[in-house]
């Protein structure tokens, strides 16, 4: 049985047995790269579930709303998604007993942009994972084409440390082994090396692109406040004018609000329509927190205390204490 079939069977069984009154999973779309979220209350709908190398959406944040009208929600979760679950648990935004987690081991997801760049986008009907390869089904072509998966993975998947779910009630399929292929901090170190004015220019160029669509915030499991400061009028924390300073303000404060809380999933950067390398900011903070206050990974253990929620009397400072 392939993963799509397993997902469908699992969802149908959960809803039939009333183990949960909602299943959130991924469906198929019109195009090969689409994988929209699917909200199922009826077992009959389970047939719409589809596993593909594009199930990138972290479904965890839908819980915030859905659990207001459902007793218990079942959710399909990848490794990175479970860090988001832990984030929500630690922030007391969901109760563990209100969710049923169906773990899905993930060896990395496909990047449409990379496929495009290799000339595979037009006429591509389906992409499937098979071992270390992606199997591409192309329109009007006999048989399928096999390409090495590693060349077409999302960047964030190359940097992944948790291909297997960290928390789950049931696991679909076998755990996968996937070494981290890229050092996620490499870019931070590169940017950091620039002289101060070059850094400013670098970020000025990146952040001036920001259109304040807030996709980065909306997709982020750590941005889970009932009412975001960026939406408030009184006080007005960030102005509405379309100018660089407000974009800088937004991006600095957004990253600060997830300092010590960012689960390093990379969704903000992936969701950004303007290609702002947001993870280079988030990871700078992760790097500094580690350097100053010790190794810490958010979203691993929901019972720990994030580094900005605690202190030690002998802490070092990032400034002169003379």
């Amino acid at each position: 049985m392939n993963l799509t079939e397993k997902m469908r069977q699992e969802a149908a069984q959960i809803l039939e047995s009333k183990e949960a009154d909602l299943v959130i999973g991924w469906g198929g779309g019109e195009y090969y790269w689409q994988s929209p979220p699917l909200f199922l209350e009826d077992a009959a709908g389970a047939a719409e579930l589809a596993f593909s190398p594009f199930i990138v959406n972290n479904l965890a944040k839908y819980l915030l709303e859905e659990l207001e009208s459902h007793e218990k929600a079942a959710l399909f979760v990848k490794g990175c998604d479970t860090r988001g679950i832990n984030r929500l648990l630690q922030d007391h935004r969901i109760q563990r007993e209100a969710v049923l987690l169906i773990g899905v081991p993930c060896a990395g997801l496909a990047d449409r942009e990379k496929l495009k760049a290799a000339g595979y986008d037009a006429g591509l009907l389906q992409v499937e994972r098979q071992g270390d390869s992606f199997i591409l089904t192309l329109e009007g072509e006999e048989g399928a084409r096999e390409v090495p998966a590693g060349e077409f993975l999302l960047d964030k998947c190359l940097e992944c440390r948790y291909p297997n779910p960290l928390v789950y009630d049931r696991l679909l399929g076998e755990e996968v082994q996937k070494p981290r292929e890229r050092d996620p901090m490499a870019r931070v170190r590169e940017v950091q090396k620039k002289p101060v004015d070059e850094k400013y220019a670098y970020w000025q160029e990146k952040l001036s692109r920001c259109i304040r669509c807030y996709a980065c915030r909306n997709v982020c499991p750590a941005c889970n406040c009932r009412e975001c400061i960026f939406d408030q009028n009184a006080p007005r924390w960030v102005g509405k004018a379309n100018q660089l300073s407000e974009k800088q303000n937004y991006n600095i404060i957004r990253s600060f609000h997830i300092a010590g809380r960012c689960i390093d999933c990379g969704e903000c950067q992936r969701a950004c329509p303007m290609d702002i390398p947001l993870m280079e900011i988030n990871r700078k903070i992760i790097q500094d927190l580690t350097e100053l206050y010790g190794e810490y990974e958010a979203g691993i253990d929901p019972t720990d205390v994030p580094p900005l929620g605690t202190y030690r009397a002998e802490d070092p400072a990032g400034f002169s204490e003379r």
Partner: protein
Amino acid sequence: MSVAKEGFEPLIVAFCCNWCSYAGADLAGTGRMPYPANVRIVRVPCSSRVNPSFVIRAFQRGADGVIVAGCHPGDCHYHSGNFFTRRRLSVLRRLLEYMGIEPERFQVRWISGSEGAKFAQVMTDLTADIRALGPNRKLRDAL
């Protein structure tokens, strides 16, 4: 980013905790210890009351330098406030530096209620540093 420095009078926003640094500034006054008038104090109960948003806002509105001053670690009137300040603002300071803001422009210092002379010295040095850097245009609202 360097602009004409001649006749430049920097604006420096100093967030001072009520119990130590604000009292230190009072003591500098009582002791008639002069320091540049460029420094404008915003009184907060504790350095831990300083939200990074306040710092960014100051730069947006035209501050050339921002300093947060609190009690020495271990001496916080509220026991542990400045320990949180130390963590939060260490992160913020490194982040701002990473975003291209000269580290001199955002400083955090511990100044006790008995350190009037230190208050005056810190503010004098800070003003000199900022004066040398010239006006800040980074993070600033378009005029």
